[in-house]
């Protein structure tokens, strides 16, 4: 190759890099490893963790241990999905494009809304993007967010929006749910959008129908963050008038993977389509009239619109969206309902079994879906130790996510938990440390 290029060594190709900025020494990194040595190393590192295979997971808070059909792996690990780039060349990317089109459709079916994008990074930034959409659509720059939203989501929304000069105000909670009175007090015709999580961070259902009315009375948009599994039994956002539904899609066939990669989804009413961030796939035809799929409405996007794009997002979470697509296709209509129904039953059984136990009491007595907040009366570290030694963990601790009370804890049971696991868990968490 060198002779074709007309140089005598590779280093000549770097001759234009000024001496001053050239690396003086090799990088100070550990020496390379053969594959087998690397695997040994990774196994050793992995063994320093205790996974949800080693411990029984009663944690929630935005990442859930739902069952994943095995066939999903066969689907997702197809090299053609796994090692493809963004489908810029539609004619040799119909596989990825059609799966995204199916993803968009499935999300519309789930949420009862009209148009979905191909995914954003994760649930929290999805909520921020939703808020930004509300602002650009209404031309207003004040956003209300319920204090019952996941604290990390609230934090992300604040971070994103403050840089755009959008004021974010929190609607206080009352008894573990958004205070409707406060909402009514705070809302005005300068509010672009109201952001609510349903079920909320504490697991509780919110009065979404009422919120929707209030919000729309003021010409604002109602942005709701939902758990997609919950939509197996809960009313879809479209049914209570939400304008934008966003959420974390991890539950749909994605591994826990210590918090990522997951996927944010974003579904909106038709009228908002040109405000949507990120990629969207549309159906079209070729010259012979054959159906095909392609990236579309790209005038919204950064590579066309640059600083005037709806968002800066480029690479998204396509493979995670494929997991979600494969999950929804595999479990299907009846299966999604079951996943939701079973999770609800398990969580409610857990809650019933905990009633009257000394160790814990619920934070508020409200309808919930698959998780709920409790007060443990115990130091979080001490509690963790007790749980771990019995083979369990739960969470998040309120302390971990900056909430009060200090001894607050989320406990969650999905359809993956068995009665036996729940019973044993109750016997550990349900007693006082000193009892």
């Amino acid at each position, binding site marked *: 190759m060198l002779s074709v290029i007309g140089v005598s060594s590779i280093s000549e190709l770097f001759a*234009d890099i000024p001496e001053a900025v050239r690396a003086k020494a090799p990088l100070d990194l550990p020496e390379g490893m053969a594959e087998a040595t690397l695997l040994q190393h990774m196994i050793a590192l992995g063994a320093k963790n205790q996974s949800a295979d080693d411990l029984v997971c009663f944690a929630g808070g935005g990442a859930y241990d739902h069952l994943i059909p095995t066939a999903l792996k066969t689907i997702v690990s197809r090299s053609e999905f796994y090692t493809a780039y963004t489908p810029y060349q539609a004619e040799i990317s119909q596989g990825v494009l059609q799966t995204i089109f199916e993803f968009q459709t499935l999300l519309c079916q789930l949420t009862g809304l009209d148009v979905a994008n191909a995914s954003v990074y994760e649930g929290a930034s999805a909520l921020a993007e939703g808020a930004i959409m509300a602002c650009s659509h209404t031309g207003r720059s004040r956003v209300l967010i319920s204090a019952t939203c996941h604290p990390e989501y609230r934090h992300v929304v604040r971070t994103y929006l403050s840089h755009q000069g959008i004021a974010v105000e929190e609607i206080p909670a009352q008894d573990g749910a958004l205070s409707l009175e406060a909402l009514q007090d705070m809302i005005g015709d300068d509010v672009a959008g109201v952001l609510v999580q349903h079920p909320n961070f504490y697991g509780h259902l919110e009065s979404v129908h009422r919120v929707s009315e209030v919000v729309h009375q003021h010409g604002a948009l109602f942005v709701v963050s939902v758990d997609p599994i919950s939509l197996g039994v809960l009313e879809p956002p479209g049914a209570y008038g939400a304008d934008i539904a966003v959420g974390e899609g991890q539950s749909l066939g994605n591994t826990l993977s210590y918090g990522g990669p997951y996927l944010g989804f974003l579904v909106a009413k038709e009228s908002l389509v040109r405000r949507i961030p990120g990629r969207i796939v549309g159906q079209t035809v070729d010259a012979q009239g054959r159906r095909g799929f392609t990236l*579309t409405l790209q005038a919204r996007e950064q590579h066309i619109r640059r*600083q005037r794009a709806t968002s800066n997002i480029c690479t998204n979470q396509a493979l995670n969206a494929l997991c979600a697509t494969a999950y929804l296709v595999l479990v299907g209509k009846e299966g999604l309902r079951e996943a939701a129904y079973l999770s609800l039953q398990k969580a409610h059984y857990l809650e019933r079994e905990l009633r009257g136990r000394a160790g814990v009491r619920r934070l508020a007595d409200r309808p919930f879906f698959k998780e709920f907040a409790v007060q443990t009366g115990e130091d979080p570290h001490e509690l963790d130790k007790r749980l771990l030694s019995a083979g369990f963990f739960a969470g998040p601790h309120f302390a971990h996510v900056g909430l009060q009370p200090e001894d607050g804890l989320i406990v969650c049971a999905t359809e993956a938990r068995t009665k036996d696991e729940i019973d044993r868990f109750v016997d550990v968490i349900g007693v006082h440390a000193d009892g």
Partner: protein
Amino acid sequence: MAETVPVIFEEGSPQRRGYRFPKCDVPEIPLEEAIPTEHIRKEPAPLPEVSELQAVRHFVRLSRLNYAVDVGFYPLGSCTMKYNPKVNEEAASMPGFSRLHPYQPFETVQGALELMYHLERFLCEIAGLHRATLQPAAGAHGELVGLMLMRAYHDQKGEGSTRRKVLIPDAAHGTNPASAAMCGYQVVEIPTDRRGGMDLEALRKAVGPDTAGLMLTNPNTLGLFDEQIHQLAELVHDAGGLLYYDGANANAILGISRPGDMGFDIVHFNLHKTFSTPHGGGGPGAGPVAVSKELAQFLPVPVVDKTESGYTLNYNLPNTIGRVRSFYGNFGMLVRAYAYIRTHGPDGLRRVSEHAVLHANYLMRKLQPYFDLPFDRHCKHEFVLSGRRQKRNGVRTLDMAKRLLDYGIHSPTVYFPLIVDEAIMIEPTETEPIEALDEFVEAMIAIAQEAQEEPERVKGAPHHTVVGRLDETRAARQPVLRWRSPDCV
């Protein structure tokens, strides 16, 4: 054998399912007892009803309609479509990594935190900077974080409200200006000079007390190393601005030149480019951001710290910009990138860049006789041709890109950077064998010839794909963004 596949909603029939959940083993209560009726879904979501066989077959068939690195050469400039070593997948799928809940107690995730801690160190070493956040989910996300850090820095200095402008080359990737805008900045475009570098004079004029910073890729999106980097950096720094390094092109400089040494204060890497994590048809990626010592205080929370009692997540950064995502990053991608760096080591990484650059120059020289080469210098890991010459026959770059598909090869990036007419941006990466490079050269030469002799054949391409050239205008004008049951239409 490759034929289009029905949309999944066109398959299946009532009651069919691809997965069976275990029976309920706890005493059940009526749904209405748990959930107020107004909250209960009235109609189940009309999801597909197919068997496991149907689901698997559907997606397997769809996959066969798709190109990928595992299928063939993927010279998509700016995207670094290198081979994704399978051992990284093996590592990431170990339950010890893939089955960790983000809210597990720290003592149960010491291996994960250790990995993150070391990966941060590695990336800082490669960047020549001090600390890093692993949280951003992609390059653009990293840019946003980086710009927020820039703003926090100026805010702290009390200049936040005056330094409102970010300088960006006209050849920059679209995410650069878009990220600046998302961070509330005004974008000032700086032209490219005749050697393909930044126009120093223009920069000199643009820079000033309202400058927050400069965003740059180096090598830039023309695949050229900006030799004036020191002068550029000095100019910006002297004016009180910061330098942001868009690491999308870092595949050219591993172990060869460190952005920190070039004068950059903030760097993002695209782990899904330089560090070989698979692209998954559009993501996930990961866009860690490394910064200088001075900026470390502003990093998003949490950061991974090593303490007496082990590794931990530190949320206590009083000057943090805040949070840009839930949890701690696209951890699965971090595992793969970590494995990649450990596999290669310092020598291996340097070899990566050397061969990436060698391959690009080889292709450039092989193709130079047949296409216009706007900047005739040694390139780095990629280079940009112009389809100007072929345009004279009415054959556009888009046509040639589509025609390449008929040769069984993915097209290069086209029409980017915007400053090159009919741009064809080619990045071969270091993982391709010379056979693949030569095959590509042959196809490109053949197409150049076709463009001259049978322009219609090129303009009508692709001819051998499962669908012909798709009507993009129609897709945008009459958007069909979801499947609808024929009954509903």
